[in-house]
């Protein structure tokens, strides 16, 4: 019994270590001091107001949202289609293609960023949101292929075949027989792909000269001073991420638990 308590206590310590810094930043973001000190001398929404009234921060946020939405849409569509396609090729090319699709998740972003930047220099695509959207979509692709792939392998191919037998075209058969079963996984994948882009710093740093995304704005700010506005943004960031991850995990578990049903 005591051994169990000790083990649970140690695990809780590990989790606390993971959350500790952001748990400290959240209350400090409600400080009204000019410099962040602990504990704050006065409290208020000063830094939240600073964020929501600064056109530069808002423009960066809007740009990041726009890019992340598009990147997520492209990654989710291409990734889901790829999962279906991968189910139709022989094992050898399937392994090679899966490796290619998953590689961006394991290669350090800085290497991919440099490659995309050099490509953009050659084709004149620097300072272009479009290039950044496609680069971010490629970074999100591995997560879509993994999450949707796990759900797709658990669907029953007989359902889609049955739909075909009864006269549905291939698209319609997929749409009515397979898609509903993997839809939660697709939505979960879309959320993950969104955050891969929304968070991404180094590709945006290389590609976007003047037009800063939110991470680039934070980066440029942090290098010169610790601006308490970032504490407010961090807190918002953390709340939004936690909520979205809870939703994504819920959807993902639902999609992969279906296996039990006949």
């Amino acid at each position: 019994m005591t051994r169990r308590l000790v083990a649970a206590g140690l695990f809780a310590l590990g989790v606390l270590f993971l959350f500790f810094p952001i748990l400290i930043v959240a209350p400090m973001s409600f400080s009204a001091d000019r410099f962040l000190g602990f504990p704050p001398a006065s409290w208020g929404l000063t830094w939240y107001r600073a964020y929501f009234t600064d056109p530069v921060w808002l423009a960066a946020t809007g740009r990041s949202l726009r890019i992340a939405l598009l990147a997520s849409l492209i990654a989710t569509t291409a990734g889901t289609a790829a999962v279906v396609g991968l189910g139709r090729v022989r094992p050898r090319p399937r392994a090679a293609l899966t490796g290619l699709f998953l590689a961006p998740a394991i290669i350090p972003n800085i290497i991919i960023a440099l490659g995309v930047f050099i490509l953009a220099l050659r084709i004149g695509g620097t300072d272009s949101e479009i290039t950044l959207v496609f680069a971010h979509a490629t970074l999100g692709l591995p997560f879509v292929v993994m999450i949707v792939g796990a759900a797709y392998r658990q669907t029953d191919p007989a359902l889609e075949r049955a739909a075909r037998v009864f006269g549905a075209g291939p698209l319609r058969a997929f749409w009515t027989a397979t898609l509903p079963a993997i839809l939660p996984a697709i939505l979960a994948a879309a959320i993950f792909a969104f955050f891969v882009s929304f968070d991404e710093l180094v590709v945006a740093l290389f590609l976007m000269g003047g037009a800063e995304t939110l991470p680039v704005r934070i980066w440029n700010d942090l290098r010169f001073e610790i601006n308490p506005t970032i504490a407010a943004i961090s807190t918002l960031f953390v709340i939004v991420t936690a909520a979205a991850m809870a939703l994504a995990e819920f959807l993902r578990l639902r999609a992969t638990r279906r296996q039990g049903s006949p």
Partner: protein
Amino acid sequence: MPFGPRLPLIPALLLALAMFAVPAALMVQQALFDPGLTAVHFERFFTRSVYLGVLQKTLVVSAVVASLCLLVGYPMALYIVHQPPRRRPLLLFLVLVPMWMSILVRTYAWMVVLGREGIVNGALQWLGLTAEPVTLLFNSYAVHLAMAQILLPVMVVTCYAGMTEIDPGLVRAARVMGAGPLRAFRHVFLPLSLEGAVTGWSVIFILSMGFFIVPALIGGRRDTLLGNLIVGQVAQTNWGFAAAMAIVLLAATVALLGLVRLVAGRFIHSPREARP
């Protein structure tokens, strides 16, 4: 087979080729041609002790961070795996949420916590351990601590995935045959969980090799890693040299992981092999 059924692969293939394979090829070209075939960028890297020192530092920091993560992450995964199946998703979720939080935000949080006016300095002064604030940032301890904290979830998840592959019947069999819990763990569970542990170590090593945010924001001048040099060279428009460094980074990573696999391969048994 006609081309039709493979049609759904096209968009992802185009994306991966245009934004990953072609850029990689262009990077190699940029490093080797300037404008004619040249080794000048690699020569510059390998003949200056500054750059070699940074390469060595990057390798050492990555190995230390991966080992720290293993030390903390393996027991955490072990704990989750020994919980009733219904409780596991929640415990995993607690580890997964920080994994998806912005690295920038988490690094900033460390800046706030370890800063001169931060909570750690506040606590030290309150306890009377120091009279003046201590400089806790801008040294390699802070870099290791923050990098390990940021990458720890990856280790827990990878170790956990490896552990769930292990057939629980094997451990039970060892217990039935008279082995105590520690002996059953050491001789059955531990060897079978090593594959996941080595995978976790390798993934964290790779990710650490590319880190630049943490060393730039909370490291000192001597904590510069290869990633920081690459970002700096891009800013100075030395693209050829930046590309050469990226290739060195990738080659060093692959070489070291090959070595790890070679050494670890002797001790590792896949949990899938041990299945009836």
